[in-house]
């Protein structure tokens, strides 16, 4: 087929002997075919990523809680790895982040629910904020759990946080077993607590 077009500007001379031309035709076919195969594989890969989240989430740490000693806002120090035999809920937060504000009622309700259980500890770690601002923020709020500072951001790095709020659950053996990125509801918090206690997760 020469195409529906009438004219041909430049046709290749037919001088080349037939076998040579057939060989060249084969080469073209092989090259075109391999380009298409590579492309098909690539599009299959791209297609498989459709609908998946491209957001990065650090792998969930099943690692011992870092042995850090952090200054308690009410004086003294808190040893994060020193809560042997207890379930620890660790919450990263600060006074200015808006999702943290939205999370506040859930945290308060959740803490009130479990505060008198013997194996329950809840620690809030300041992320990217100053002690003064957090103390001002705490005034007039019913924050019953321990708040600690993270002056050089070591805790934030050790827990591999990517922002705030973020919540982690540590089981009685001192291993981080559950995590929630972003604003957590009471339901999320209950689920993490259950996971840390080794109870069946609903």
């Amino acid at each position, binding site marked *: 087929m020469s195409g529906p077009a009438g004219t041909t500007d430049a046709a290749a001379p037919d001088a080349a002997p037939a076998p040579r031309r057939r060989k060249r035709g084969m080469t073209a076919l092989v090259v075109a075919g391999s380009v298409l195969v590579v492309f098909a594989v690539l599009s299959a890969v791209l297609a498989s990523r459709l609908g998946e989240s491209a957001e990065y989430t*650090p792998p969930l740490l099943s690692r011992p809680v870092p042995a850090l000693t952090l200054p308690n806002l009410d004086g003294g120090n808190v040893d994060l790895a020193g809560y042997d035999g207890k379930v620890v809920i660790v919450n990263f937060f600060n006074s200015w982040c808006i999702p943290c504000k939205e999370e506040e009622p859930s945290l308060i309700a959740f803490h009130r629910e479990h505060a008198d259980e013997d194996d329950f500890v809840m620690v809030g770690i300041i992320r990217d904020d100053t002690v003064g601002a957090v103390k001002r923020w705490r005034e007039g709020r019913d924050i019953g759990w321990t708040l600690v500072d993270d002056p*050089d951001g*070591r805790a934030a*790095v050790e827990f*591999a946080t990517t922002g705030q709020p973020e919540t982690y659950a540590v089981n009685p053996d001192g291993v981080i077993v559950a995590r929630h990125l972003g604003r957590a509801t009471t339901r999320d918090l209950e689920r993490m607590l259950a996971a840390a206690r080794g109870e069946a997760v609903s």
Partner: protein
Amino acid sequence: MSVRRLLPWALMAAAVVVALVLATRPGDAPASPEARAERLSSQLRCPVCQGLSVADSPSSTARAIADDVRRRVDAGQTDDEIKRAYVERYGEWVLLRPRSDGVAAVVWALPVVALVGAGVGLAFAFRRWSRQPSMHATEADRRLVEEARVSAPGDDENGAAT
């Protein structure tokens, strides 16, 4: 080729060599803790940014990681130990320079394969071209070209890309 003709090129080559030697001479303490921490930070990916390194990112998270890297350097950890510590926390994802083993090796190997392939292909092409009977310019052609050169104003390169 006469020595006088070669001399300017030799001088140029010498200038280039001297310049490169000057440019690579050891500078201010190559393995200073700052430099090491900075280099490591530039190879770690900031976990809260879009593809930036810890060294580049102004975010508080990146600053905290950079401080942590510096602490680890001061504590005497090796580059590999520091990188491993971060891979343990953030996964392979944290390394901006993919490793040269495992699946990631492909990303290093393929360009080399492509380069060698292109080189071999070009060599074949030139060999085929050099075996092909070339068309030889006749005396008439040469005269034609000469006339065109003479009549065209200026150096022929200035009309070359028309």
